[in-house]
């Protein structure tokens, strides 16, 4: 018997996903070819073995670990009378830093393409900012911008040097804002936020300071850092919580200071 089924056809047949046009031919072949029928039965046995395997069990006491990790992140929900009041105070206070951040970004929009300038300007700005005075929406916007930049970098194939140079400029800008927010969070003792902002800063600095003609290996290293440290995952969690807070405050008549537990 010639024209035996291909391995791909066996798999599609097993899952019942053979195209209608091919189904009659394949069924007819299986009915008349012992070799292919046996091969199909062998695949079925392998799949039954997969089905019979027990899933990997969680370690003992995992429920407690899961709750301990989760509890500090649960939303405050004053309307329903529960939850720890957790939104960071440092992210709610004064307007000075917010204006500074806004002015900084406005400057970036109109300030041309030179990378070093914003970094220097912001370094001076950081020194003038009173810790504990960044508005929450700016924090959320910063995390969103950082996330976008990291996603783009993680997907950079490395064949467009101009695109990488653009990502470096954005990283340099983000470092500056990141420092302002991190210092405020540090002042308020918000260890969890400080941790991720420190990790972010290290990666952003590496990106900003990488040679413009970074080799594909160097780019891969940077991309590995982003993924290995779960930066995107952690960023998404925090940014999403920030947005949730903002929405909640809009519906309840504006933000009120809350303290994030230091777990």
């Amino acid at each position: 018997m010639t024209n035996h089924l291909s391995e791909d056809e066996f798999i599609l047949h097993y899952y019942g996903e053979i195209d209608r046009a091919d189904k009659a031919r394949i069924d007819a072949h299986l009915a008349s070819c012992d070799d292919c029928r046996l091969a199909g039965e062998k695949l079925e046995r392998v799949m039954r073995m997969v089905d019979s395997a027990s899933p990997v069990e969680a370690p003992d006491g995992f429920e407690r670990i899961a709750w301990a990790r989760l509890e500090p992140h649960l939303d405050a929900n004053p309307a329903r009378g529960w939850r720890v009041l957790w939104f960071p105070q440092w992210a709610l206070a004064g307007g000075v830093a917010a204006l500074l951040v806004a002015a900084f970004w406005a400057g970036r929009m109109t300030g041309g393409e030179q990378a070093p300038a914003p970094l220097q300007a912001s370094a001076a700005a950081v020194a003038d900012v009173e810790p504990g005075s960044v508005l929450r929406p700016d924090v959320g916007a910063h995390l969103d911008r950082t996330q976008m930049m990291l996603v783009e970098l993680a997907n950079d194939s490395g064949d467009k040097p101009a695109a990488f140079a653009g990502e470096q400029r954005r990283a340099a800008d983000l470092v500056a804002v990141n420092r302002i927010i991190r210092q405020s969070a540090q002042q308020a003792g918000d260890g969890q936020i400080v941790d991720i902002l420190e990790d972010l800063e290290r990666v952003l600095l590496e990106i900003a300071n990488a040679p413009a003609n970074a080799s594909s290996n160097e780019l891969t290293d940077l991309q590995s850092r982003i993924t290995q440290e779960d930066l995107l995952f952690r960023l998404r969690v925090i940014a999403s919580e920030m947005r949730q807070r903002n929405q909640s405050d809009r519906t309840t008549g504006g933000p009120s200071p809350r303290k994030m537990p230091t777990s």
Partner: protein
Amino acid sequence: MDERDVSVVARARDGDRDAFHALVEKHSRYIYSLAHRMTGNAQDAEDVVQEAWLKAHKQLSRFEARADFRTWLHRITVNCSIDLIRSRRHREDAHDPADLEQGPLSERGAEAQPTPERVAASAQISDRVNDALGLLTALERAAFTLRHVEGMSIEEVGEKLGLKTSATKHSIFRAVKKMRHALEPFVQS
């Protein structure tokens, strides 16, 4: 969902912290296993569990009281696993942990050649299957799990993973071939 579950979920929806804690206690092990099957390692599984509970907590008010809580949580966990895998796709593409040419587990030294009696034990089978799953890239593993375990069609798997149908098929084909190469020596003919 039994009556007690309905009542716990209802209390959690109303903001009862202890009720939500009870749900975490009851279902965390289940979603850990699910997340581990999707992601292939303990650290990622733990992260997915946390993300899944955070999402569940935020979306609890939208949960239909008549629906099954575990099914709902299962879906959230699968989606969180997919998010994690998609965010890592670029890295995965660059570092495939095992090529088809690498050969099945049964050819990798004496340690990997148990007797038929040992293989017959279900723990051994589970180990073999989990070892074989370890040969898959994260993308192949996710595609295979969604197709084989979750029962999604290839088209649905592609939508979930953001892949074209041809790329989805390719991932599933590679996954099944690796599983077959690794496990075929242990199935009785």
